[in-house]
């Protein structure tokens, strides 16, 4: 537990100082924990747990767009769980239930819990379709076709800078659309 959280903090520090591989590893590492918490929250609210992946993606987007509010000298886990808790409560409230979420929900993945493979999530995909063409093309290229920023720039005849801007704006407007739905 303790070790795992220290590892997260280390990875996030590297990520903030520009190491994208560390960032990728961190997001991969926290996802199962977020997923387990989302499933538990849904189950407790009497909601179908198959919606957990939408919540996980919502949390990941918020983590990404708000990571500048993390204090690099503080441990990462409390910040992460605060973001996750906020998003989970929002998601459950949107589904029309009065809910209580325990911080313990995030504390650990129960040993008996079978790891869940990436499940289908519809909300992000649905909002993706409503983005401006440029942003959608860039996101599609990087997410679905696994192209690098450089390859995407070449393919779409854009500068790398423009791809970066479109990528970030796309992620930000996806988040805004998810919040407003």
């Amino acid at each position: 537990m303790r070790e795992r959280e220290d590892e997260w903090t280390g990875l996030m520090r590297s990520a903030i100082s520009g190491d994208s591989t560390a960032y990728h590893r961190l997001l991969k590492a926290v996802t199962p924990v977020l997923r387990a918490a989302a499933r538990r929250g849904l189950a407790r609210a009497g909601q179908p747990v198959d919606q957990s992946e939408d919540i996980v993606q919502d949390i990941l987007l918020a983590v990404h767009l708000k990571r500048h509010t993390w204090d690099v000298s503080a441990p990462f886990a409390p910040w992460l769980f605060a973001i996750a808790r906020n998003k989970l409560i929002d998601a459950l409230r949107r589904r029309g239930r009065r809910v209580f979420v325990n911080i313990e929900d995030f504390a650990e993945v129960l040993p008996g819990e079978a790891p869940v493979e990436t499940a289908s999530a519809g909300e992000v995909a649905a909002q993706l379709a409503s983005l401006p063409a440029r942003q959608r093309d860039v996101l599609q290229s990087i997410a679905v076709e696994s192209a690098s920023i450089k390859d995407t720039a070449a393919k779409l005849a854009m500068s790398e800078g423009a791809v970066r801007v479109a990528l970030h704006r796309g992620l930000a407007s996806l988040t805004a659309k998810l919040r407003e739905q």
Partner: protein
Amino acid sequence: MDTDQLIKTLAADNAHRARPVGFALMLALLAAAPVSLLMFFTELGIRPDVMTAMRNPFFDLKFAVTLALAAAAIAVSLHLSRPEASLRGFGWLLLIPAGLLTAGIGGEMMMPQRLPMMTRLMGNNSRMCMTAIPLLSLPILAGALIGLRHGAPARPAVAGAIAGMLSAGLAATLYASHCTDDSPLFVATWYTLSTALVTAIGALAGSKLLRF
């Protein structure tokens, strides 16, 4: 898009650096301030006897109180822009202006006064005060909320309320230079009511605008 693809996309955007919330708040306040200043100088202006008034410690106390409120609220706002933060350990900052005001009231009580207490409390400008402070604070509140949207407050309504105090503190600083009522009793009554109103507006707006 499955979650692995999303993670890949987020990692690709790792190079993007957002500005710290403090910086965003400062820019937004600097952009909003001229609007309030313009409103103040076209409609109210500084009181003509300001040079004499400055020798009155109760005139000066008004600025100490309003600026202490603004500064404390800025500090608390920035603290609350982190999702894991709560008011605990920071909320006491907001008591500083209240403490200054209480000390001022005590000080005034100990001095001989020409006017009875109720007259000083009611003053001559209570209605103006209740109108001007909320109106002057609206542009600043809008700016504060725009700046604080860069943060991730766990309780958006609370963060919005503090933004309301922040803008009321700055607006009251302007208004204090216009108003001829200097009694701490007047300030404690009418400035506080105006601030409470702006705080409520901030809480309402914050609960909508500061969600992330």
